[in-house]
C-alpha cells in the first residue's frame, strides 16, 4: 500500500563501537542512499550510538519466510556433536 510519491523505506544498521559488527536498529524513509545516511544520523545516533552507518533499501532485502523455519533450522537441532560440550575430556588432560 505504498504511495507512489512516498520516499522509499531504508533499513538502518549501526556499528556501535570499533570492533563490533553492524547491527539492525530500525528503518526510515529517504529519497536516496545519501539522504538515508543523513536521516539515520539524526534519527538513530543522537546519543553517540555509533561510529558507522549502513543503509539498505528495504525492498532489496530477501528474507526467509516464517514457514521455512522448520526445513531451514530444524536439521541443526539434533546435531549436538557440533558443540564442544558433547565431548567428555578426562580431567587430568586439563583445560582444552
Amino acid at each position, binding site marked *: *500500500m505504498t504511495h507512489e510519491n512516498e520516499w522509499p523505506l531504508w533499513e538502518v544498521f549501526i556499528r556501535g563501537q570499533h570492533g563490533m559488527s553492524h547491527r539492525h*536498529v*530500525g528503518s526510515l524513509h529517504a*529519497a536516496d542512499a545519501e539522504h538515508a545516511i543523513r536521516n539515520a544520523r539524526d534519527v538513530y545516533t*543522537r546519543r553517540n550510538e555509533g561510529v558507522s552507518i549502513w543503509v539498505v533499501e528495504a525492498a532489496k532485502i530477501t528474507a526467509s519466510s516464517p514457514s521455512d523455519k522448520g526445513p531451514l533450522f530444524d536439521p541443526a537441532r539434533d546435531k549436538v556433536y557440533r558443540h564442544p560440550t558433547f565431548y567428555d575430556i578426562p580431567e587430568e588432560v586439563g583445560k582444552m
Partner: protein
Amino acid sequence: MYAQMVQSTGKGLQDRKEMSPEDQAFQDRIDRGEKIEPKDYMPDAYRKTLIRQIGQHAHSEIVGQLPEGNWITRAPTLERKANLLAKVQDEAGHGLYLYCAAETLGVSRDELVEMLHSERMKYSSIFNYPTLTWADMGAVGWLVDGAAIMNQVPLQRTSYGPYARAMVRICKEESFHQRQGYHIMIKMAKEGTADQKRMAQDALNRFWYPALMMFGPSDKESVHSAQSMAWKIKINTNDELRQKFVDETVPQAEFLGLTIPDENLRWNDETGHYEFSEPDWSEFFEVISGNGPCNVERLNARRKAWDDGAWVREAMLAHARKSQKRAQAAE
C-alpha cells in the same frame, strides 16, 4: 498514556472455542511469551488494532512537539533552550520509530499521516491543552512525560516485536525528558521567587487532571481492553497505571512544596496507595472528540507543516530519480 481508548474488535474477549486453529496457535505463541514478527501469521483484528494503537502513539509523539516547540524561542537561558530542543527532537524521533513499527503491519506512513489530518485517527488528549508559561515546560516534562513513561515501560514487553523494540529505544531516551522537566520545577518552585513559585503551582493546577486523563477512562467495563490484554498489546489496566502514577508523583510534588489540586487526596495505610479524585471525564470526551482548547490549532499546525513541506518531499524524490537515471545511463 499516548494511546487512549484504542478500539479492538468491539466484541470483548474471543472465546478459544470460537477461534480457528491458526488463531489458537497464534494465541498459544503469545501465551508462551513469544514475540510476533511482521511476516508471522496474525489474526486480522490483531493487525488492525495494533495499527490503530501504534499509529495513535506515533501521532501523539509528533503532535506532542507543538506545545513545547512553542517555548523554544523563549526559553530563559541558552542551556534550557538546548535541553528543550533536544527533547523536541527526541519526540520527532520517537514518532518516526513508531511509524516504522506500524508500517511493518502493511500500512504506509503517508496513509497514517493522512488519517491524522482527516481526523480519522486520534492523538493523546493531553496535547490539546495550551502551554501558557515557562513553568508549563516543567509541568509537561514532569507530569506528561512521567505519565507516558508509566505506560511505555510495560509496553517494552508487548507481543509485537517491532513495537516492543521501538518502545525499548523510546524508554531509554524518555527518562531525560521527565528529569529535565522536574529540574525546571525545582528551580522555580524550590529555588525561585514568589512569582516563580506561583507559576509552578499554577502549571501543576492546570496539568494535574489532564495528566490523569492520559491513562484513559476506567477500563473495568471496556470490551476492548480484555482482548488487547489477551494479545499482550496492553499490559496493565488504565486504573492500575493511573494509581501507580499518583503514588509516585505525590511525594515528588511534596518535595517541591507544591499542592496537588485535589481536596480528596489522602494516603490510605490499608491499601498502601493514595486515594484521589477522578478527573472530569466529560471534559476528556469533549477533548478527545475534537473540542479541547487547542485541537483546531494543533491539527492546523500539522496540516500546514505537511503542506508547506510538500515541495521539499517532491524535489528530493525528483532529484533522486534523476540521479538514478543518470547513473544507469552511465553504466
